């Protein structure tokens, strides 16, 4: 008996004839990526951000800082006095304004740390996620040029994205990771629906082994998630202009499969408790919804308060998102790749064995 291929074919037919499933797994993520791509898409590749520089110090050290900053292509420096630059910031004509206070050079020569005021509008996401990291990087370079021993700039931020990364580059891998999660977890609805309609019960009256049934379903969900990811990566490049690291695509496919399997396993686990499709949906929502906001998909992890960190660390999407961001656009690692893959594999093993143990035909 070889029922595996016929079951795959059945899954395929059932899927492509199900408008709701098609909408959620294909149309919805495509719309999502499309909208984000259009709204946030990078303009010209060499896009730069206007940053005001207020020089209230005339020392050589201050001049060096200005020179370093002007070498960053992502920054379009405008010099001016404090009042007019801050006014431009308020008008939205500047992303940030850096003030180099009088006595800056003297303070550096004395070896004393010298804070630099950086004014910016925190409601501007691009500034938070792109300009600030670039500035920090610039300060680091300036720091090195001025003194090897002590930091000149005291900052509360820790993240350093690569300087060319823009919001779209940050968001897209996260959105794709989100689609993998949704495709996996909500993919389990098909099995719940078959149980609810008592089709599984009918199948249990045949010699079909459970592993073939579950194996074919999991395989099919995997293929869907993988194709979905391919489609979304292509869209991210075309619409969003995301600079995808082509050499990492095979690894990205591997991570998609691993992450997809982990989320399918979680979906099957949840599905074991649901008697009906109606019952499954809210449970799956409750599990996936917080992950959208807390696992660094839309908001960087370092913008979150400390007390929420344990929750964030318990979320598989945190690791999938990080892994995909590293591979797709060379994002700064939050965790090492080994940790990301290890955690996803652990989720897969734990939830798959639970799901198999809890699997019921009726």
């Amino acid at each position, binding site marked *: *008996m070889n029922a595996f291929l*016929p079951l795959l074919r059945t899954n395929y037919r059932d899927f492509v004839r199900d408008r709701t499933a098609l909408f959620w797994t294909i149309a919805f993520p495509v719309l999502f990526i499309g909208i984000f791509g259009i709204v946030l898409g990078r303009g010209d590749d060499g896009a730069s951000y206007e940053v005001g520089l207020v020089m209230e110090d005339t020392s050589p050290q201050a001049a060096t800082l200005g020179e370093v900053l002007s070498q960053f292509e992502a920054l379009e420096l405008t010099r001016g006095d404090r009042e007019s630059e801050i006014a431009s910031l308020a008008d939205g004509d500047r992303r940030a304004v850096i003030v180099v206070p009088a006595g800056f050079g003297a303070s550096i020569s004395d070896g004393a740390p010298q804070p630099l005021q950086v004014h910016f509008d925190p409601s501007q996401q691009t500034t938070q996620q792109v300009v600030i990291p670039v500035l920090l990087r610039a300060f680091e370079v300036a720091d090195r040029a001025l003194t090897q021993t002590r930091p000149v700039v005291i900052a509360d931020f820790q993240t350093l994205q690569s300087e060319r990364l823009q919001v779209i580059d940050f968001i897209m891998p996260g959105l794709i990771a989100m689609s993998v999660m949704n495709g996996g977890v909500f993919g389990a609805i098909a099995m719940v629906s078959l149980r609810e309609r008592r089709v599984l019960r009918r199948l249990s009256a045949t010699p079909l082994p459970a592993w073939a049934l579950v194996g074919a379903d999991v395989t099919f969900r995997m293929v869907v998630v993988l194709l979905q990811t391919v489609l979304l990566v292509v869209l991210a490049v075309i619409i969003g202009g995301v600079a995808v690291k082509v050499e990492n695509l095979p690894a990205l496919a591997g991570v998609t499969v691993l992450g997809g399997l982990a989320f399918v396993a979680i979906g099957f686990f949840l599905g074991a408790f649901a008697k009906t499709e109606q019952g499954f949906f809210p449970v799956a929502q409750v599990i996936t919804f917080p992950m959208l906001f807390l696992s660094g998909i839309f908001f960087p992890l370092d913008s979150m308060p400390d007390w929420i960190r344990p929750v964030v660390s318990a979320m598989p999407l945190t690791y999938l998102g990080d892994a995909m961001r590293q591979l797709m656009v060379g994002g700064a690692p939050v965790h090492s790749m080994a940790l990301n893959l290890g955690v996803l594999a652990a989720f897969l093993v734990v939830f798959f064995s639970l799901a198999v143990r809890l699997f019921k035909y009726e």
Partner: protein
Amino acid sequence: MPVIEVRDLQKAYGDLQAVAGVSFDVAEGEVFGMLGPNGAGKTTTVEILEGLRIRDAGQVSVLGLDPASSGSDFKRLVGVQLQQVALYPRLRVHEVISLFGSFYDRRASTDELIALMGLEDRRNARIAELSGGQAQRLSVALAVVNKPRLVFLDEPSTGMDPQARRNLWEIIEGFKADGMTVVLTTHYMEEAERLCDRVAVMDHGRIIALDSPGALVRASFDEDAIEFVSNDGLTANDLGGLAAVTSATSQGSAHSIFSSDIPRTMGSLLDLAAERGAPLEGMRVRHATLEDVFLKLTGRTLRD
């Protein structure tokens, strides 16, 4: 050796004793019927024999195996039609048959089954688009997709119009002609009378009679029945007192009188009706049926 042997089978759902100790054998090549009203325990009994439910007590042997513990070795040998049709709603008729066929080494061809069940013009229809009767026919087709020696049909004619039901009866007679053993549950006494070699009459989880349909009727009745409708005036008591009447039952205005001498009873019935001025409508004379047997044994009809 019998194909099925059941001894003192029991199954309860909580406090409800759905099957309260039934015993019977089914011989090779036999069409064995289980007749009883809804809730009698028919489905519970056959699904235990199919290996889909686990019994509480008793011995069961089907094709020499215990269905509860034999798994797929057992399941590849038998054919099963469940009372509720449950199939992939978005699949087409021929796709479902091919899928189920792929679960077995030994299988009938999809086209053959479609022709057998008269589903040629619904071949490409989705399951969700089938009428109740068509879905039921497909479900019977799936029960024989593995050319089983033994097939279980649980109320296969539910939802069918009379014509489709008659077609199905011919198909089941064909199964028997091919040497298949058939276990059939039904609450249609005509179906049991026409198809079954032997019938177990079930009520409240017990078998209250088991024999061939003819023998069951003969054991309860050696008389024929007069049936009619009369709106007023006549009671079962009046009718029981007529000449040559052995028993009389009334359900509202519908009356049945069993008589050992139809002409004498008829004469005295007409006299009584004339005397009371009671109308007699739809009068007919018929042989006793399994329905009568059930009514006599339980005091209720099969439809109750």
